[in-house]
């Protein structure tokens, strides 16, 4: 059996977060009653003409700059002609030969810690189509044109990905980026961010690409991964069974976890692209680009690099904490609060804050299904807790208990510690007294320990902690207990 290499390219459709449509003044809000947000332009009434929404262009340029791409000084809108009831004009205004953005790239971090650069062939502006509705209508179809004319940025990658995991990592990276840039809300359930995957396989070592199939309209990371897995297995089966993969468009059925043929190359439309004579070529000058560049936020990769460089975080932690703009902002707010009490953050404090944000805080958010911007624990309250860990008022274990209380109340960490008497015992004498009492109460265990059963050390730690309600400073306890048990007293 041959060893197969998988080749994947993605076409990501990101809905741009403009208030109005790309060629009309109608609103773009999601979920409005059918056809309440379709203007005469969207309905393609005779004599209606498109006028480009400058904000959509600005967002496309912003994306182009963020991926280090070439922004075309002159780009052209083209018509893609085909008949469908949800396409009112009988053509979609898109870009064909001269897209606004070309030749960019993004670097993704893979699970094994290696980085991989994915080429982005182009990103072009286009309008979305409407929706056909077939449910609840007897012997008829409904058409909702609210979505018709919504601005999309289609981001086309090179066939650079070699596994479903890489494809998902790339898609996540783009997802992070468009949200960072605030050009797309990234909402996948509402279809604001979706992709088509071009998948092929070839015997490892072969230069020529295999015949690809395009899987349409994948709207979750999980579906992308599962659809690619299924498709790769299907193509290998076909080839190993002596067949040939045909170039076609396929649909992924998430209920059955399989892809199905939609139409073959022969049945494919001839879209008869040609430049849209209703729209002049778009001219973008250096001043416009400079203007857009000035609005670019710190990008995820830049932020991650800064976290590593200035805070000494690991590449993994820096990557996680910069994966969303909100998470990064929260983390930095915690650091700022810590700085108020502890002075300039040192690497140890940053690492502590990182662990808490990525650990306890993230699990609490996940558990309650909350966005970080709606966290029950503000950066200031979390910082209040971390300060008490740093100054050894409480141990890390107690801190977790305090965090749960922070999550479910409005009290500060200090109030919770005081009210529950959780302050750590750091008085060596007090700890010694407890140790003495525990040893005295367990003579047999003491004898066993001294005769070589080292494991019983844990038993004594447990007993002391139990007696102190977990508040004994662990480091001090270890040191004192070791001395006592070895017969120092």
């Amino acid at each position, binding site marked *: 059996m041959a060893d197969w290499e998988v080749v994947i390219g993605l076409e990501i459709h990101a809905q741009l977060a403009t208030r109005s449509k790309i060629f009309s003044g109608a609103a773009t809000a999601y979920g409005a009653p059918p056809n309440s947000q379709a203007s*005469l332009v969207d*309905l*393609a*009434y*005779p*004599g*209606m*003409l*498109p*006028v*480009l929404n400058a904000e959509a262009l600005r967002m496309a340029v912003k994306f182009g700059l963020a991926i280090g791409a070439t922004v075309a000084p002159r780009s052209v809108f083209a*018509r893609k*002609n085909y*008949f469908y*009831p949800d396409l*009112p*004009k*009988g*053509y979609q205004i898109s870009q064909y030969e001269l897209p606004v953005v070309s030749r960019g790239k993004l670097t993704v971090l893979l699970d094994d810690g290696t980085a991989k650069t994915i080429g982005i062939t182009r990103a072009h502006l286009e309008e979305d189509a409407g929706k056909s509705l077939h449910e609840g209508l007897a012997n008829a179809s409904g*058409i909702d044109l609210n979505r018709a004319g919504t601005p999309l940025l289609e981001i086309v990658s090179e066939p650079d990905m070699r596994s479903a995991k890489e494809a998902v990592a790339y898609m996540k990276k783009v997802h992070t980026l468009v949200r960072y840039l605030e050009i797309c809300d990234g909402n996948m359930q509402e279809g604001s961010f979706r992709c088509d995957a071009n998948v092929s396989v070839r015997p490892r070592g072969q230069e020529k690409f295999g015949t690809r199939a395009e899987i349409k309209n994948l709207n979750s990371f999980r579906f992308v991964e599962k659809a690619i897995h299924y498709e790769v297995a299907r193509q290998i089966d076909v080839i190993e069974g002596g067949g040939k993969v045909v170039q076609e468009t396929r649909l992924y059925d998430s209920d059955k976890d399989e892809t199905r043929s939609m139409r073959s190359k022969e049945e494919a439309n*001839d879209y*008869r*692209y*040609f430049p849209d*004579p*209703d*729209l*002049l070529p778009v001219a973008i000058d250096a001043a416009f680009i400079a203007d857009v560049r000035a609005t670019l936020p710190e990008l995820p990769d830049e932020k991650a690099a800064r976290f590593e460089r200035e805070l000494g975080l690991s590449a993994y932690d820096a990557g996680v904490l910069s994966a969303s703009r909100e998470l990064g902002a929260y983390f930095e707010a915690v650091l700022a609060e810590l700085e108020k009490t502890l002075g300039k953050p040192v690497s140890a404090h940053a690492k502590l804050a990182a662990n808490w944000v990525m650990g306890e805080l993230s699990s609490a958010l996940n558990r309650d299904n909350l966005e970080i911007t709606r966290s029950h624990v503000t950066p200031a309250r979390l910082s209040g807790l971390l300060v008490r860990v740093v100054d050894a008022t409480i141990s890390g274990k107690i801190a977790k208990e305090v965090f749960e209380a922070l999550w479910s109340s409005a009290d500060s960490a200090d109030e919770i510690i005081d009210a529950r008497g959780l302050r750590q015992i750091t008085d060596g004498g007090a700890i010694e007294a407890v140790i003495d009492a525990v040893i005295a109460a367990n003579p047999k265990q003491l004898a066993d320990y001294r005769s070589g059963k080292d494991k019983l050390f844990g038993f004594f730690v447990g007993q002391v902690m139990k007696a102190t309600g977990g508040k004994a400073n662990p480091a001090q306890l270890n040191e004192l207990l070791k001395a006592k048990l070895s017969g120092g007293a």
Partner: protein
Amino acid sequence: MLHTLSIGELAALLEARTTSSVELTRHFLARIERLNPSLNAIITPTAEAALLAAAAADRRLAAGERGPLLGIPIIHKDIFCTDGVRTSCASRMLDNFIAPYDATVVARLKSAGAVMVGKANMDEFAMGSSNENSYYGPVRNPWDTTKVPGGSSGGSAAAAAARLAPCATGTDTGGSIRQPAALTGVTGIKPTYGRVSRYGIVAFASSLDQAGVFARSAADAAAVLEVMAGFDPLDSTSVDVPVPNYSAELAAPASAGGPLKGLKIGILREFFDGLEPRNAALIHAALEVYTALGATTVEVSLPHLPLSVPAYYVVASAECSSNLSRFDGVRFGYRCEQPRDLLDLYKRSRGEGFGAEVKRRIMTGTYVLSAGYFDAYYLKAQKVRRLISQDFRAAFSTVDLVAGPTTPTPAFSLGAKLEDPVTMYLNDIYTIGANLAGLPGMSVPCGFIDGLPLGLQLIGPHFAEGKLLNAAHRYQEVTGWHRQTPRGYE
């Protein structure tokens, strides 16, 4: 009689309150009622709305407001969307279509106080050169009702010639104002591409379509164009160049040594190749008038002009094949009875809704844009288009305007060219170049052959409408061809 007066004269009567807009409107509505049946120039008369608009204009006049078109009746080609009034494009497809908005041209004329008295017949979707391709039947030429009025704005031209209104709007994609103006003996102007907004005009070929005016004289055309023209943010291809006061320019005193002293006119050599001698003689006679007015003439050449007809029919058909896709029976317009399924709905709605010429062009356009043919046809045609623009640019580096015949022949008989689309297409050979290059062009009445009028065509550089109107106006000051009225319509 009111219909024999110019727009300027009518405006003066209205301002003096010697007549009212209602009276004027009634007069033209009566003419439409009486004369239109034999011409078929009007698809939809709009008497009721017209009288309301006229009454409103009278109130504005009574309040002391003045304006060159305030209270003046006008006819719109049925390609301009008119709020609440059927806009059919002379097609079965839009026989039931009532636009809920006004085209920018219509809105501007409305707010200037012009009174729409009817919507003019035309070739279906502006595709044709004889006005025989109309769902509502052909338009007849008032000079001889066995002849065509030209197309596609044949209804507007015939209406202006028969004095059914003092002026009419039209559109010119490949000569559709100038050719019928020539064949009906009226003055017609097609402005620079981008001069007049296309918003609300049912699109035929977006990169060529341009709205213009039919009137009795260049001075009247100037008064109407002034109101229609100007930048419109709703049309991305409209150009933000200020609109000059054309009428004031025409009224300026003539310079010493002849009103057109210093004007250099290029005579288009290719336009006379094979031209019928009587036709050529009329054009040369007109050019002699220009010399007498102080202009100088010199021969110029547009070497690529013979390629304009094929290039035009590729570009215009390509654009129309896409522009007309929206007529699918789903949201508005004609829908076939009892469609079996979606494909049947499309096929029969379009098959039954469109006429033969429209289908021919959609098929041609679909073909030239198809994979494997795009480069050979569409791209090649665009290259030809650039060459023709360069030819004109070269000509305008040495002359101010170029001149030649508007058409190869006077009006031909109804039915004469229907069976042969290519011969019909060749009728536009002299007018298409200006569309391909986006230039302003005019047709000015310059004589008769066998009782049928003929036009002199003037073409200028981009935004030279003022220069064209002035050249036509000075000619009309010393000639009387534009004042000739067909018998029965005096």
